[in-house]
């Protein structure tokens, strides 16, 4: 947790479980895969083996484009703990082309230039354990 990754941010390893294995395995290969509900077509975030519509447990995983736009963002300047040395950094929600709004960081740019509505593209920031964190950089 103390090591910083290629973008100067912590790269804490995720907890991988039976429901999220597919997602994390794909990130290690630089691919974004998401579950889509077989009943209603909703693309579900966070990844899981069910739709958020009650009762639907049938999903099909597909490869997403990795394209999105910034839905909201903030430059965090003061934060305790292991992130302190990474500040200032950009925390954001990115709305994927496929619908979901995902919590993430915008990296590879001047934090002060990031803004709502900005087009961004997925990048995969490797953790020491193999899976990579889904972050975004200006498109």
């Amino acid at each position, binding site marked *: 947790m103390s090591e910083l990754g290629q973008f100067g941010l912590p790269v804490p390893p995720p907890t991988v479980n039976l429901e999220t294995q597919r997602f994390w395995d794909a990130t290690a290969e630089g691919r974004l895969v998401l579950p889509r509900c077989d009943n209603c077509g909703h693309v579900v975030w966070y990844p899981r083996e069910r739709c958020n519509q009650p009762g639907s447990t049938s999903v099909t995983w597909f490869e997403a484009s990795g394209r999105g736009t910034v839905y909201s963002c*903030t430059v965090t*300047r003061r*934060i305790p703990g292991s992130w302190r040395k990474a500040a200032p*950094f950009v925390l954001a929600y990115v709305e994927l082309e496929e619908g979901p*709004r995902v919590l*993430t*960081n915008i990296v590879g740019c001047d934090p002060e230039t990031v803004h709502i509505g900005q087009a961004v593209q997925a990048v995969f920031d490797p953790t020491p354990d193999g899976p990579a964190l889904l972050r975004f950089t200006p498109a």
Partner: protein
Amino acid sequence: MPSVTIRGKALIAGVYEHPGRELPDRTLPQIHAEVAAGALADAGLTLADVDAYYSAGDAPGFGALSMAEYLGLDLTYIDDTETGGSAYLVHVQHAAAAIAAGQVNVALITLAGKPRTGGAGPGGSARFSSAPEASFENQFGMSVPGGYALAAARHMHEFGTTSEQLAEVKVAASTHARHNPHAFLQDVVTVDEVVSSPVISDPLHRLDCCVITDGGGALVLVSEAVAASLDRHCVPVLGTGTAIKHTSGGRIDLTHTGATRSGPLAFAEAGVTPADIDYVSIYDSFTITVLMTLEDLGFCEKGHGGRFVSDGALQSPGGELPFNTDGGGLCNNHPANRGGMTKVVEAVRQLRGEAHPAVQVHDCELALAHGTGGSLATRMGSATLVMGRST
């Protein structure tokens, strides 16, 4: 509307806010016990009268079960509902329902915590790391202010809200806190001072954030029969509403809170409208929390919160909608990082006419308390209470 209403069936007979803001020499259970004793004494009751106990994630160990033994309670009803800082308002709803159903006579609700001197944050952190969402949120450096900053930034983008308007919320709270000798921050601040304080996470400044304090509080709810036997002014619960809002499978909407649903439920049960309310205690973890909640409860149009809070509208006396007359979480107290308990306590003080004379609302007949637990940036438990001076 439910066919059976709790309206007026349960009354708040006792309230207590711990006067301490730094309590290094007490254990967590001791603080729970102190606030329990305080609220029961306020009501004219004792621990032996309690048949129902409510606690949330701040209670140590097994929660209410551990605390029941520590306090020596003899219970036939227990409830550990956890929605973060709003849990104590949810507990009031649950206690009122149990009292209306005839299952409970005297309900005790406690909150205690030591985030200031105790090192650890509030309870439940071990559970957070095992949450199904954990690895999709915790890996990105989302602090509590950072999450609320995302909501504030989006609100500004959609509605043109400004930092100066957010600052008005803090300014109003500070004008009240100067009269509260227990308030953690007692100095009146200006809009300029708020917006020139250090940025924590854009657009939120240090003075947009609530205080971090040790302490706690407690409430005692009783049936009409018990209330009739007490000398204390008991405040009837007239309406309650709870709503959970979450990310909806990745479609989070950052500019609304669960108050859009909890508010109408509480108003309908009470049979009143926002225009009837004389005083509000609004959860104020951050200035943006207050602004969005006022919109969502219907005190102003959606998106007009910034204009609404300007020009001293929230100040008592004289403002259009006096709020948080104890100084709120922004200035007075946010014990255990959970502001719901103190919101109910100050609303009861107002209805009893026992707020500080400098901020007491004249002829306060109807008060509203609102809690927002969790985070505006992810998932929240929203709870609204309407209380009256009398039924």
